[in-house]
């Protein structure tokens, strides 16, 4: 196992990276905290009793009257945050006795993506008006009260994959029945997200990019290039070429949207009975940026499926051209093939950084509860790299 000096970063090195890769304020805060804590203790499974004790204190400061927490349990799924569900019996401000189920999402010491809980919290709050998103109630962005950065949201019923038996396989598609039910809702919600007007929402955790400028794109490149420098175990020259190309070709943003950055199958819940999408999940990577990034990300071969007729479906849902045509019609926003091609490279480059740099880095430090899963995700890297190579070929 490679153990290098990045496991014990010096303050001077951390500062040099901050200067070299200027990015959004809260992104900088998160990455700086990650690096300052890197030499700290490894992740250990939390005692449920201690999480409940902190949670009781946290809620006690926010709820008036008596309350009780029951059925506290760990949840599976997700590669980054530790998730728990619990039932809360409490009395609301109108004096009505309530019993609701909530999800507590907590950041481990380091995860496959280091993100700021307040960004996730604000974006979910904002876009709830337009698309189904779990209601978010409380946030502890620094982990000052809950021990780790965390947010608490309403629990939503639903599944991420159609019910099925048998061994795990990464390519568990939706199948024709659920595809027909889910695809129209999925494209509609992605289009709603792109056209959502965020300007009257609280977005204080974001630095909104200027329209007709590529400044926001450069900040995003800095974000992920900084992560690469912080985490990479060994160099991969194709990624260096990709970063150079992205800087040289960064397009101005024509319309600033919330960009989810992980909008795909597996990150939404639906009811198995009727296929209704009940919640879009995993908002941790959200930023204000160019809608083409979400589209390009979805086009990754990692999320494709070959249907019964041998046609490749992006996101396992639609042929690419059909998806884009529907998206344009529903969002009222054009899809520019040049920008889409740019964000193809961007998304594949970013995805490669998660798995080639951050995944082995956090495994080395035993920083997460999901070592085994992020290690498994590394097996998908060659497919992403192959698509990145294809996207760059002829452009470099």
């Amino acid at each position, binding site marked *: *196992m*490679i153990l290098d000096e990045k496991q014990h970063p010096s303050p001077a090195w951390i500062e040099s990276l901050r200067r070299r890769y200027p990015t959004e304020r809260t992104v900088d805060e998160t990455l700086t905290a990650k690096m300052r804590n890197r030499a700290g203790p490894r992740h*250990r*499974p939390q005692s449920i009793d201690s999480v409940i004790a902190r949670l009781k204190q946290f809620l006690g400061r926010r709820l008036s009257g008596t309350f009780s927490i029951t059925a506290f349990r760990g949840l599976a799924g997700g590669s980054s945050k530790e998730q728990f569900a619990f039932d809360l019996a409490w009395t609301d401000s109108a004096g009505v006795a309530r019993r609701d189920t909530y999800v507590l999402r907590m950041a481990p010491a380091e995860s496959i993506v280091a993100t700021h809980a307040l960004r996730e919290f604000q974006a979910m709050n904002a876009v709830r008006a337009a698309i189904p998103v779990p209601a978010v109630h409380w946030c502890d962005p620094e982990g000052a009260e809950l021990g780790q950065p965390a947010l608490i949201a309403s629990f939503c019923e639903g599944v991420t994959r159609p019910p099925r038996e048998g061994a795990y*396989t*990464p*390519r568990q598609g939706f199948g024709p029945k659920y595809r027909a039910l889910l695809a129209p809702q999925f494209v509609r919600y992605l289009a709603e997200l792109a056209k959502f007007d965020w300007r009257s929402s609280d977005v204080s955790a974001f630095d909104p990019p200027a329209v007709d400028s590529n400044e926001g794109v450069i900040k995003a490149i800095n974000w992920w290039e900084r992560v690469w420098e912080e985490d990479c*175990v*060994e*160099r*991969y*020259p*194709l990624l*260096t*070429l990709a970063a*150079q190309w992205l800087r040289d070709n960064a397009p101005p943003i024509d319309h600033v949207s919330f960009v989810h950055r992980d909008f795909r199958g597996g990150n939404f819940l639906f009811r198995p009975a009727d296929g209704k999408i009940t919640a879009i999940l995993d908002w941790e990577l959200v930023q204000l940026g160019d809608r083409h990034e979400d589209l390009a990300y979805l086009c990754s*071969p*990692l999320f*494709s*499926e*070959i249907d019964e007729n041998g046609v*490749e479906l992006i996101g396992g849902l639609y042929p690419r051209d059909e998806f884009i045509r529907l998206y344009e019609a529903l969002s009222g926003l054009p899809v520019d093939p040049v920008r889409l091609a740019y964000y193809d490279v961007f998304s594949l480059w970013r995805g490669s950084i998660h798995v*080639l740099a951050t*995944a*082995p880095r956090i*495994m*080395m430090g*035993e920083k997460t*509860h999901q*070592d*085994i899963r992020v*290690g*498994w995700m*590394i*097996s*998908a*890297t*060659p*497919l992403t*790299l*192959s698509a990145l*190579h294809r996207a*760059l*070929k002829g452009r*470099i």
Partner: protein
Amino acid sequence: MVPDFALRIHAMIRSLRDVVLPALPKNEMLAIDQANILVGYLGIMAEQHDRVFEYLLVELSEYAELLGALVEDAHGAPSIEDAAAKARAALDMAAPVLQMSIPRQGELSALIRSLKESVDELLLAARQDGTPAYRQASRKRVMQQAERQILRERAWFRASGFELEPSQLPSIKDVLLLNRNNS
């Protein structure tokens, strides 16, 4: 190679120890017993895996020494002469390997990391100060090498199930041979 085997084995041990074992019902004695054996097994593999080749080389060297000594004293009956002739042939086959200087897996990985680092530095320098022709040529070479590396990596991880059409990929053996023949 990312991730290396030690990292993967270590993650499996952590998963078994921190997640699976504590979740097993106390009365599932067989499952608990076997999960604990798995932890032990993986621990042994973590210690052994990058020394396997070295271990075999030591064994080869020791047996060559033993056999050499036995052959020197082997005279007399035809059966002894026959066996000694076969032993000399076996020693002749082993000799070139014994004369090679073969690096340890860790040393090899460190060398590769250092070459990758140097490629990166040259790419960055070329972008900063290189002529357009040198920049272009460097990029082209990196793209060509990346194509071979990615094919090798896809074959290496073919069994993970992430590939859309895994049957279209060469086997690990074929892709390693292909790369060796090209270099």
